[in-house]
C-alpha cells in the first residue's frame, strides 16, 4: 500500500476494520472523537453498524450486546468516559465477552486537561472495575503501532474471550506520521471459535480441552444464559464455591498460560548495558530519543519498549534489568507502571521520571536521569 500521512486515531480505525470490527458504539469525547467520526462513515460502507449512545456506560453495554450477537465490536473514549465504562468492562470480564475498548488518554483526574496527553489510566485499566479479573492492555507508541496493536487487540479479545483495552494517549492519537499499511491479506486475523456441538451439549462457560470455550452468537440455535453473576458452566447463577473457584481458575489461567502469546515488547539492550530505560506509549518515543543521545555520549544504555502493559511483562523486565545497575521508568503520570517495575526489580534500582501536567516528557529529561550517577 502507498505511503500515507495518517493520524493515530485514523490508524486505530483502519486497524479495527482490518481486524473485522463491524460494530462501534461510542459517545463524543476529546481526544478520541476522530475514531467515532471516521467509523460512522466507514462502518456502513462495509455493512457494519455505528451508533452514538447516550453515554459511555451505554456505549460499552451496546458493544457487549453486539458481541453477543456474534459481531466484533469496539468503543473508543478518554479518561472520563473510561471511568464510566468500568462497570460493564467488569461485566465483559465476568461473562467472557470479547470486545475492544480504546482509551485515548488525556490528563486527569476529572475533566482535567481535555486536549493534553497523559498516561494516567494505567492502573485504572488494570484495576478500574471491582473484583478480581484478568485483563489485557496494549499501548502503542506510533501511528503504525496503533494500527498493528488494534488488530492485535481484536485478535487477543476473540481468542481469549476477554475485553482488551487499547491504551493510547493524546500524542499518539492526534499525531500524524508517514505509514505504509500492510496489505490486508498479510495480516493474521483471529476469529472467535464457533460452537460445533449440538445445542444440548453446549456449555458456553465450560473448561474444554482448548481452554477457551466457544461463544455461540445469540439467535443461532444455542439458547443459553449470560449473566454478571458468578455462574456455572451453562451460564446459570451459582453460589457454589467449587463452581466459583472454577471460574476464577479458568479466567486467570488462560491469560497466565498464554503470557508468551499475549505479551509483546521490543528490546534493544546491548551486552554491558548499565542503565535500562523502560517505556511505553508516546513516552517511548522520548525514551528512544534519549537512549540515542546517551549512546552518542558513550553511556551504556538499554531500552525496553513495552507494547503489552497488562499482564505486566515481568519476565522480560526482570531478565533485562538483571545486568543493569539502574532502571529508568519515564511516564506521563506520577508513577504507575513504575510500581510494577519496582515490584519486579526492586525499589532501589528504579529511577522514576514523571510528568502529569499535560506536557510530554522530553528526551532531555530522560537523558538527565541516565546521566545521574
Amino acid at each position, binding site marked *: 500500500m502507498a505511503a500515507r*500521512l495518517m493520524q493515530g486515531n485514523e490508524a486505530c480505525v483502519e486497524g479495527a476494520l482490518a481486524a473485522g470490527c463491524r460494530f462501534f458504539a461510542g459517545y463524543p469525547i476529546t481526544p478520541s472523537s476522530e475514531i467515532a467520526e471516521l467509523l460512522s462513515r466507514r462502518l456502513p460502507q462495509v455493512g457494519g453498524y455505528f451508533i452514538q449512545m447516550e453515554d459511555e456506560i451505554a456505549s460499552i453495554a451496546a458493544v457487549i450486546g453486539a458481541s453477543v450477537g456474534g459481531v466484533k465490536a469496539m468503543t473508543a473514549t478518554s479518561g472520563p468516559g473510561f471511568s464510566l465504562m468500568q462497570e460493564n468492562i467488569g461485566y465483559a470480564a465476568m461473562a467472557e465477552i470479547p470486545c475492544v475498548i480504546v482509551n485515548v488518554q488525556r490528563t486527569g483526574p476529572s475533566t482535567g486537561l481535555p486536549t493534553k496527553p497523559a498516561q494516567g489510566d494505567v492502573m485504572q485499566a488494570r484495576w478500574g472495575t471491582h473484583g478480581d479479573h484478568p485483563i489485557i492492555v496494549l499501548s502503542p507508541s506510533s501511528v503504525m503501532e496503533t494500527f498493528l496493536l488494534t488488530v492485535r487487540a481484536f485478535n487477543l479479545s476473540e481468542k481469549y474471550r476477554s475485553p482488551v483495552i487499547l491504551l493510547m494517549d493524546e500524542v499518539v492519537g492526534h499525531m500524524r*506520521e508517514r505509514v505504509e499499511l500492510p496489505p490486508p491479506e498479510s495480516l493474521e486475523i483471529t476469529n472467535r471459535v464457533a460452537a460445533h456441538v449440538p445445542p444440548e451439549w453446549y456449555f458456553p462457560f465450560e473448561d474444554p480441552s482448548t481452554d477457551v470455550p466457544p461463544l455461540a452468537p445469540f439467535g443461532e440455535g444455542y439458547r443459553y444464559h449470560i449473566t454478571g453473576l458468578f455462574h456455572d458452566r451453562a451460564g446459570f447463577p451459582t453460589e457454589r464455591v467449587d463452581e466459583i473457584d472454577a471460574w476464577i481458575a479458568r479466567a486467570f489461567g488462560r491469560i497466565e498460560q498464554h503470557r508468551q502469546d499475549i505479551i509483546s515488547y521490543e528490546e534493544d539492550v546491548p551486552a554491558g548495558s548499565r542503565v535500562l530505560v523502560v517505556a511505553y506509549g508516546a513516552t517511548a518515543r522520548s525514551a*528512544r530519543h534519549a537512549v540515542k543521545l546517551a549512546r552518542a555520549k558513550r553511556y551504556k544504555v538499554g531500552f525496553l519498549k513495552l507494547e503489552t502493559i497488562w499482564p505486566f511483562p515481568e519476565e522480560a523486565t526482570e531478565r533485562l534489568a538483571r545486568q543493569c545497575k539502574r532502571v529508568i521508568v519515564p511516564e506521563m503520570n506520577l508513577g504507575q507502571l513504575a510500581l510494577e517495575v519496582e515490584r519486579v526489580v526492586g525499589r532501589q534500582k528504579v529511577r522514576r521520571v514523571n510528568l502529569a501536567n499535560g506536557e510530554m516528557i522530553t528526551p*532531555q529529561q530522560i537523558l538527565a536521569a541516565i546521566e545521574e550517577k
Partner: protein
Amino acid sequence: METNDRYEIRLAGEGGQGLILAGLILAEAAAVYDGKNAVQTQSYGPEARGGASKAEVVISDGVIDYPKVIAADLLLCMSQEACSKYVYGMKKNGILIVDSVHVDRVPTSRAYMIPITKIAEEATGRRITANIVALGLIVGLTGVVSRKAIEAAVRARAPKGTEALNLKALEAGLAEAERIRAEAERGQSVPIRAS
C-alpha cells in the same frame, strides 16, 4: 546520528487560523510527496476558535523518535501571544517568521516580519488563507520541502472547490519569499519588512 537529522517546525497562533491544517499539509508534502519521514503533532486548547493553537512538524531522512519540537529550526508566529511564548524555544540559527498584522513586538532583530494576513487578503480576498500563504513563505525561505510537493499537498487537502484559491495563496507566499531572498542577495542584511 539520526537524532541530529531533524528539521523542526513550529507553527503557533490561535485556534481558527488553520495552523493544524498547515502543519498537516507540510508534513504530508514531506512524507507523501517528497518521500521523507515526517511527524506532525498538535497542541490546542479546549476552544474551537480563539484559544492558543500550535502545530509542530518534524521532518527527517531518518527515523523520528521524539515527535515534538525540541528547538525550532523554523518558528511561525501568527499571534503576539505565540511569539512571546515560543521565540526563545528556537535554535541559534533558527528562522522566525511573524505575521506583522498580528504581532508587533518581536524580541529579536533576526525575524521576517511579513504581513501574511494582508498578503492573503490581497491575493485571494480571504484572510482565512493566511495559513497557506505562510506555507508558501516557509517553503520559499527554507526549501524544507519541494515546491512540487507542497503544491500537491495543498491541492490534496484544500476543501473541495477551493483548490485554485488555496494554490493562489501558496503562490503569493512563494512569491513573497522570492522577493525577500532577492532583497537579501542585493545585500540588505536584515530581511525585515515593516508592515
